[in-house]
């Protein structure tokens, strides 16, 4: 994290579910225009971390976005300020059409016009073919595209992606991560949580390894990808 100014800074964040502390003092920084990955095993606290940054979960610690401390800022206001989360469970409006889902994605931009439906359809032509279909009837991959498309409709500055490749075929995973890289090139800053550590690090600028709710390792993505500990635990030897 050298010369780039940080868009998001998290200091000593703690999140508890009752007596269980799922995130235990995490600090991280996401530079503007970068892709930063968080990798870690199941239950490491990755989704919890994203939820707390977004304001969907109560937390202790400090979250700074675009130079402002977000303390009492509710989730919906963070969306309006340019942060958007694509959660693990996607949270689509299943009984509404693809197009309605997308249009609602631009809800916080409603005073600036209808949102960039065309841009999303260019990026995901499949969604245009399915625009009148109910979101709940889409395939898993299509639903993930819709979830990302809906998030893009809000024209986010910071996109938080929670396992966008979950349950998808390898070909689609590559496609989705390629689109994430494109988004970064278009100026969107991305905080990416992925099980698929190799593919995630390949497109990332920086990475963090989360274990038991704490940051174990961090560094430039290329270095992490060759770190023996990371290779042993998260990258395996296969493909």
């Amino acid at each position, binding site marked *: 994290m050298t010369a780039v100014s940080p868009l998001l800074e998290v200091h000593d964040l703690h999140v508890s579910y009752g007596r269980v502390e799922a995130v235990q003092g995490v600090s991280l920084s996401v530079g503007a225009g970068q892709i930063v990955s968080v990798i870690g095993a199941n239950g490491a606290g990755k989704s919890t971390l994203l939820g707390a940054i977004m304001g969907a979960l109560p937390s202790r610690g400090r979250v700074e976005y675009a130079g402002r401390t977000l303390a*009492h800022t509710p989730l919906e206001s963070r*969306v309006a300020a340019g942060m958007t989360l694509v959660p693990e469970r996607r949270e689509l*409006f299943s009984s509404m059409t693809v197009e*309605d889902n997308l249009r*609602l994605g631009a809800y916080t931009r409603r005073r600036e016009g209808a949102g960039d439906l065309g841009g999303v359809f260019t990026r995901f032509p499949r969604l245009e073919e399915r625009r009148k279909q109910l979101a709940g009837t889409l395939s898993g991959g299509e639903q993930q595209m819709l979830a990302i498309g809906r998030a893009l409709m809000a024209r986010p500055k910071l996109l938080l992606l929670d396992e966008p490749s979950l349950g998808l075929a390898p070909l689609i995973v590559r496609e989705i991560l390629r689109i994430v890289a494109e988004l970064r090139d278009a100026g969107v800053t991305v905080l990416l949580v992925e099980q698929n550590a190799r593919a995630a690090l390949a497109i990332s600028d920086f990475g963090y390894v989360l274990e038991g709710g704490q940051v174990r390792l961090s560094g430039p993505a290329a270095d992490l990808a060759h770190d023996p500990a990371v290779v042993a635990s998260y990258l395996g030897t296969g493909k």
Partner: protein
Amino acid sequence: MLGPVAFSLSAPSLASKGLALNIFDPAIFPILTADGLTNGAVYALLSLALVLVFAVTRVIFVPQGEFVMFGTLTLASLQLGRVPGTLTLLLVLLAISTVLNVVEALRRGDGRAAGLAAGSGVALGAGVWALTTTLAAAKAPLLVQVLLTLLLVVPLGPLLYRVVFQPLRNASVLVLLIASVALHLVLVGLGLVFFGPEGSRTPAFAEGNTALGGVTLSNQSLLVILVSAVLMLALYYFFDRTLTGKALRATAVNRMGARLVGIRPTAAGSLAFTVAALIGALSGLLIGPSIAVSYDTGFLIGLKGFVGAIIGGLVSYPVAALGALLVGLIESYASFSLSQWKEVIVFTLILPVLLWRSLSSKHHDEEDE
């Protein structure tokens, strides 16, 4: 509940002779049908309001009928040149909600928002008070009184949401239902205090009759059917075509998803209650000329809308509206041949429908957040 409004024949007196009357008599049947549709249209509107409020806020809104009662009786008060008690209720709720908003803003450390909330609360209250007292004393024309009635009753929706249900927004459906029943009792009590025990009618908006293919309908009941139909079309347009309407549906479908696109659940809840109060108040204005409404009339009217809503499983708008129309029709036929058994018949005939619904509906669990 709603008496026969569609015809000026002396049908009730015929019925009271206790003769075995055939509702399928070609001279009677169309009249009863029109009558049933008139009442059913109002029940249908109420059932839509109930489905909407439940879907967006998970509140089973028992006091929906009280908006109807406040609608009729506020207009009746204004007709008599009195300042309706509704104004007092509105001002008290406005004061409480202003205090809540100010406290909340101060907690956030936002002094400007606190000042704004306090200022706008006081200004709104003063404005409504001045307008109501002036217009009430001046005995304004009917249309102005109707608009004033809406101005007094409709804000009760969002204010009651702010004061009662917004603080409980994370509570279980059961707790919300208990609050809802309590609120119903409070509003009925206030209705008694404000308007007294007697029923009142309001003047008809349309005089005379119109012959439609051999059936003579009063213009008033035609107006009820027409306004209800227009209102339903407007609601359809709102939910199907506008982004705000879609945002309400989205909140109902997936609350977390709605929050993630920036829709505040409290704003959605407030809007749902506004629509519900508008529907209730308009229903009260529509039925006011047909029946004598008193402080406790709202419940039974609301209950019939509720039966429609239940038939729609509290989720389907078209099924709820059709169910409510069915209730109106059954009630009308029953009131003709067996008027003293009317309510019994209405609610008994509903049982098999509900049984069938509960057996045939797939149980989909409520979306947990």
